[in-house]
């Protein structure tokens, strides 16, 4: 039986990473030329890793399913990236960022990894500025910061509401430089369908060219997965339509343990569902909670009148509104962490106070901020501070300057003007903290197979703080993996090129081809989306914001039945040897149908509430999450043929540098 060894270096936490770097094996420049690395996924993690490893001299082959590496879904991240620069002089430090991240993750992440993340966070900002990333600046020409949920300092760097885009384009530009030099060979519109293991080591992948349908063999000395999260198991989410877990799941089936699948982030501020045709959900950045106040009506009569259109939210007086986050969490108010804010919205909507037709929406209101900014501006400009029209105009100008693109996006989708009436928002699946288990080196339980960025599990525990995903993706790709992978590859300097005409590649390719043939020849009666939507409903209703034993048990049964139905009855039009999006989708949904069941199984065994995982049975009398000491471990699942047979391994989490206490935002 495989055992988990996190390989955390010895020594004080502040010195671990430095000492580690001093002691690892290095590969000399001449030998790097003889070593190949495959990187799957070209988002912030994969893109930054590909560029950096190519700069170091390795031969990199990078793969993405989009038409260009620039389109990976990191591009959609809006709000910002955290770094412990302390440019604001407000008391930030590496330790603070480490502390906030561990606490924000509800004490379910690995201390040493998080500390390393906080340490390299400042390098990321330096690197990105050097690349020409146009971060927001103040009038003195220095970098500006904003504040995000769950912290008491301003450490978030941003580029309007498009920070992910700018950071990704930075990584993409670094990749382009290496593609131009021939050090990265880019395979876009390619999907990885299996990882090939030779003598116990990851030595290549099987990929499908999505344009021609051709199945290709690619070998390397190490394989890196930067393939993102699995939130699309819920069908509706803020992920891109193509975001999928196939690479991660295939790796799991080849021996990589899958950790904490039940830890999912459900983001509090998304545009509510409008109908059955809905294909995806749109996020409204967390930065809006800096100025927006969240509320529902206090009285049920008002709720009903609003739903029937007889009452406008703006007509409701202050005393008839329930600003429930400010009421429940006076210290953090509207800036509580995401899991807390989402659950509080669900609590109000479950109690019947939802403000749209479906009863699944709360208000995010900017009227108070417009008035406050308006008065400030009127004062500054020497205008009448009691003139409502003046204040309204000045206040709206400020809000427009800060959030204009988000307000415009909202108006396009909902057809309501958020400057005049409060936004309606509801939580939606947004990020997965769980993922492939990795050790301190970011290596999975398969030697030579690495997982970076959202694809791995390690840094965010049970809940991720805002603006930390971009930080982790770039930390892994720019500053961590390039060291740790060298230590492993130092043993491969004499290996020579890995051949692809060996039996391991034959077998892997045969397996892939068989599945594809089965799918295109199935001639069932229902489309892929039919099954995906059904899976999404089960996941959302039974494995969503709050879970309980009964629901989880029935989810496991229902998902496994749905999976059987899928394989008997799915209909995939077209052929395997052409561009065929339905075929690509079918393969991804087939994997979600397995992953979803493991997800429920993991949630069922975790008899506690922590971060994004909330069990109805384990809550405090005030309805807060109840963590339990006996669950202070990472659950790492080993594949054994079917999700129900997966074997649980536990990595105990030890906190030596931070006191584990009640996570309170009151």
């Amino acid at each position, binding site marked *: 039986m495989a055992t988990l060894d996190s390989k955390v270096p010895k020594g004080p936490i502040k010195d671990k990473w430095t000492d580690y770097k001093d002691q690892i094996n290095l590969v000399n420049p001449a030998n790097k030329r003889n070593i190949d690395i495959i990187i799957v996924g070209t988002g912030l993690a994969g893109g*930054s890793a590909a560029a950096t490893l190519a*700069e170091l001299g390795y031969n990199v082959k990078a793969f993405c399913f*989009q*038409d*260009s590496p*620039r*389109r990976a*879904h990191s*591009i*959609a991240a809006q709000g910002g990236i955290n770094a412990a*620069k302390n440019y604001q002089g407000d008391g930030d430090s590496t330790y603070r960022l480490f502390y906030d991240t561990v606490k924000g993750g509800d004490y379910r992440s690995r201390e040493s990894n998080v500390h390393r993340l906080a340490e390299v966070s400042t*390098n990321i*900002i*330096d*690197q*990105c*500025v*050097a*690349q*020409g990333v*146009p*971060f*927001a*600046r103040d*009038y003195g*020409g220095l*970098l500006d910061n904003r504040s995000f949920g769950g912290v008491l300092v301003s450490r978030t760097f941003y*580029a309007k509401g*498009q920070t992910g*885009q*700018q950071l990704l384009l930075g990584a993409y*530009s*670094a990749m*382009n*430089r290496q*593609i*131009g030099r021939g050090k990265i060979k880019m395979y876009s519109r390619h999907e990885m369908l299996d990882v090939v293991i030779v003598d116990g080591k990851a030595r290549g992948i099987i990929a499908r060219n999505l*344009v021609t349908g051709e199945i290709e063999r690619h070998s390397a000395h190490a394989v890196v997965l930067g393939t993102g999260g699995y939130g699309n198991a819920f069908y509706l989410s*803020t992920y*891109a*339509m193509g975001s999928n877990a196939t690479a991660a799941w295939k790796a799991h089936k080849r021996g990589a343990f899958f950790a904490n699948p039940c830890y999912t982030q459900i983001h509090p501020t998304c545009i509510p569902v*409008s*109908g059955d*045709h809905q*294909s*995806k959900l749109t996020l409204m950045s967390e930065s809006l909670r800096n100025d927006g106040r969240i509320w529902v009506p206090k009285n049920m009569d008002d709720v009903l009148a609003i739903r029937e259109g007889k009452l406008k939210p703006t007509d409701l007086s202050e005393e008839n509104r329930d600003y429930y986050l400010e009421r429940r969490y006076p210290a953090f108010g509207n800036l509580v962490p995401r899991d807390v804010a989402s659950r509080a919205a669900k609590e109000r909507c479950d109690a019947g106070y939802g403000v749209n037709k479906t009863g699944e929406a709360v208000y995010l209101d900017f009227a108070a901020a417009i008035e406050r900014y308006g008065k400030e501006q009127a004062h500054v400009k020497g205008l009448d501070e009691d003139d409502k029209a003046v204040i309204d105009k000045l206040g709206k100008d400020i809000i427009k300057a800060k959030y204009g693109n988000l307000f*415009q*996006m909202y108006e396009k*989708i909902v*057809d309501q003007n958020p400057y005049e009436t409060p936004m309606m928002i509801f939580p939606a699946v947004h990020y997965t903290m769980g993922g492939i288990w990795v050790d301190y080196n970011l290596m999975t339980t398969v030697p030579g197979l690495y997982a970076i960025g959202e694809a791995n599990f390690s840094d965010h525990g049970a809940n991720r703080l805002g603006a930390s995903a971009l930080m982790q993706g770039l930390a892994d790709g*720019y*500053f961590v993996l390039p060291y740790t992978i060298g230590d492993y590859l130092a043993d491969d300097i004499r290996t020579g090129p890995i051949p692809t005409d060996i039996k391991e590649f034959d077998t892997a390719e045969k397996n892939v081809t068989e599945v594809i043939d089965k799918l295109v020849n199935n001639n069932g009666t229902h*489309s892929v*989306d039919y099954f995906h939507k059904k899976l999404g409903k089960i996941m959302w209703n039974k494995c969503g914001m709050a879970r309980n034993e009964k629901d989880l048990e029935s989810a496991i049964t229902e998902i496994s039945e749905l999976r059987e139905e899928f394989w008997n009855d799915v*209909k995939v*039009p077209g052929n395997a040897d*052409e*561009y065929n*999006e*339905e075929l690509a989708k079918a393969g991804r949904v087939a994997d979600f149908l397995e992953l979803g069941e493991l997800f429920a199984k993991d949630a069922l065994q975790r008899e506690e509430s922590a971060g994004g995982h909330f069990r109805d049975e384990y809550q405090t009398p005030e309805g807060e999450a109840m963590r339990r000491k006996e669950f202070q471990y990472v659950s790492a699942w080993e594949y054994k043929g079917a999700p129900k047979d997966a074997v649980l391994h536990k990595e105990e989490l030890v906190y030596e540098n931070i006191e584990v206490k009640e996570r309170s935002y009151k």
Partner: protein
Amino acid sequence: MKLTLKIWRQKSANDKGKIVDYKLDDVSPDMSFLEMLDVLNQELIDKDEEPIAFDHDCREGICGMCSMYINGRAHGPDRSITVCQLHMRSFSDGDTIYIEPWRASAFPVIKDLIVDRTAFDRIQQAGGFISVNTSGNTQDANSIPISKYAADDAMDAATCIGCGACVATCKNSSAMLFVGAKVSQYALLPQGQIEAAERVQNMVSQMDLEGFGNCTNTGACEVECPKGISLDNIARMNRELMKATVK
């Protein structure tokens, strides 16, 4: 609402391609344009016909993947949006809608509404970067103050999503708005100065090599750009090119 759709179907790059008519009976004004196509595709699959291939991914207007010519306009009616942000409330019951792929010789059709835009990647590979290795020893991010105005202008240029609407809209299939935006981003920042001359020359010559046309200042690209990238960027690129070549 009821719609008649006239959609370009083309099996592969070498196929001739033609417009095919489809009817949809029950379209909700709250649907996005792509969700309307999802409904059509679902009907086609149910009827054992091949669904319409189109590029799409983030569906929130930032990845730049979606790319359709709708009633003769890139990304359809309405300003400053991509197709995925276009909602059916912009159309009326009984409308006929023409849907075609981007048209440009540098963007060959792959299938139906999908075109190959790797020419854009190759232009970036020719010089769309600052040559700085990852080290952790680059200087502190605040060591060079940058005027807020320059940083904001660089950001406005950098918001380009690389969708190709500018090329598709231009009667010359010019990519100068796209290239100008990238050249401008770096030209406006101190970090971009060292390689400025080579960058603009390399990117422009790759642009020409890919078969994109020249700019004749009609300004159609700026009108159709979902991110409102300004023509100023083309002027700046020309200025940079002039600076680099006249010594």
